[in-house]
């Protein structure tokens, strides 16, 4: 097939599409080969007909885009994860519309765990054993931070999301931003330095925010020294790195992991409106409980007063009752009570008769009903 060109001012000129078409034709003549590399950025979705991934050279980071029809990919049942090393059998192909070249995979074979992931997994285990990720080490965030430190890239999106979330929730918040590298080989040290600087300037909470990126882009956030710096940071750290499904070691070491930069912003400040409402509720509660305390004391005082009023009355009653009892006792002991029971008092003149008197002695006999005269017989 011939690729069309035109003559312009004596030069042979190709249109973009015919140039791409030419390259595509040329690529098609290349042989089918095996390529070895690490899987990164594996993108597979049910509604897509093609699975995409990037094959990375572990030696120098060179990358190669790979595509495979989803049906074929699924039939292999590889369940690949980012970082795994694979062999891809395929041939180069050009996506003519965009002039982008990729490897069209015919088959894929697993070649053992990717070096990066394995190393990362080892580091993760070591740090976990040391307790760097332990939940007991997580510190609570300040309720109302004085000064918030934000370490972020200068790409704006993550930074803007954090700042917007903070200022809409708590307008009076103070934020100190340190823009720094957030990917590449300098990123880990740069983030560490930025953290130290913000801490030195007196922040009382730190946010480390970075937008989404490939496995490699986020690798800096699993750097051992940086992870240790986060765990040793003098103030609590909130991390929001990559998308929710990418978990870096910094995320694990941070005191709080936010799913997005916006949510990190919302986490570090209280909601001002909520705070006001709480304050108002508390104020009312305070007044109510002070009043209630007064009322409770007044009630208890009223009860005591009632007891005070009753005590002397009861005491007097008690004494009166006792007096009655004594009087009854006294009465029981008087002679008239004995006469009441049928005994008689016999007198001769003024004297009581205790011995039988001489016959004919005039006597007075006193019984319950009255007295009568008699003579001794």
């Amino acid at each position, binding site marked *: 097939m011939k690729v069309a060109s035109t003559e312009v001012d004596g030069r042979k000129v190709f249109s973009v599409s015919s140039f791409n078409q030419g390259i595509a034709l040329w690529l098609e003549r290349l042989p089918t080969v095996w390529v070895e590399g690490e899987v990164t950025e594996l993108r597979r979705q049910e509604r897509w007909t093609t699975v995409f991934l990037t094959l990375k050279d572990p030696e120098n980071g060179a990358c190669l885009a790979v595509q495979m029809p989803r049906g074929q990919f699924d039939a292999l049942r590889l369940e690949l994860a980012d970082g795994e090393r694979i062999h891809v059998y395929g041939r180069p192909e050009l996506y003519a519309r965009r002039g982008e070249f990729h490897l069209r995979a015919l088959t894929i074979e697993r070649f053992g765990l990717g070096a990066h992931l394995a190393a990362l997994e080892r580091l993760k285990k070591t740090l976990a054993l040391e307790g760097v990720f332990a939940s007991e080490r997580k510190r609570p965030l300040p309720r109302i931070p004085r000064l918030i430190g934000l370490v972020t890239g200068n790409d704006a999106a993550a930074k803007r999301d954090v700042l917007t979330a903070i200022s809409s929730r708590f*307008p009076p918040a103070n934020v100190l931003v340190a823009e720094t590298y957030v990917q590449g080989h300098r990123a880990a040290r740069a983030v560490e330095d930025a953290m130290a600087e913000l801490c030195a300037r007196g922040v009382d909470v730190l946010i480390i925010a970075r937008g989404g990126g490939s496995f490699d882009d986020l690798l800096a956030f699993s750097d051992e020294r940086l992870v240790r710096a986060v765990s040793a940071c003098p103030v609590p750290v909130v991390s929001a790195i990559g998308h929710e499904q990418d978990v870096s070691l910094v995320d694990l070491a941070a005191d709080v992991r936010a799913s997005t930069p916006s949510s990190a912003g919302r986490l570090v400040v209280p909601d001002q409106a909520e705070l006001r409402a709480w304050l108002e509720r508390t104020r009312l509660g305070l*007044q109510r409980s*002070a*009043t209630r305390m*007064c*009322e409770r*004391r*007044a009630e208890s*005082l009223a009860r*005591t*007063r009632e*007891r*005070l009023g009753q*005590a*002397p009355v*009861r*005491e*007097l009653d*008690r*004494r009166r009752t006792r007096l009655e009892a004594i009087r009854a006792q006294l009465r029981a002991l008087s002679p008239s009570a004995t006469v009441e029971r049928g005994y008689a008092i016999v007198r001769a003149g003024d004297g009581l008769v205790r011995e039988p008197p001489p016959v004919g002695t005039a006597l007075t006999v006193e019984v319950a009903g009255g007295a009568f005269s008699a003579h001794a017989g």
Partner: protein
Amino acid sequence: MNEPSFEEDQAELEAIVERLERGEVELEELARLWERGERLCRRLAAELTATQGRIEELARELDAEAPEPRR
């Protein structure tokens, strides 16, 4: 000498009531203790009313003072 506090007055009042209720007092003491108790009651009630009034007054003052802080 310091004025006795509300709590001190209250404790004295309660001690008086308990003594009266146990009935361990001389007859002349009865009237004297009751009078002392009644005086304490009035003082305590007056103090409570004053405190409650002060709370309500302060709440009104504060309400009038600063309705909204700066935004």
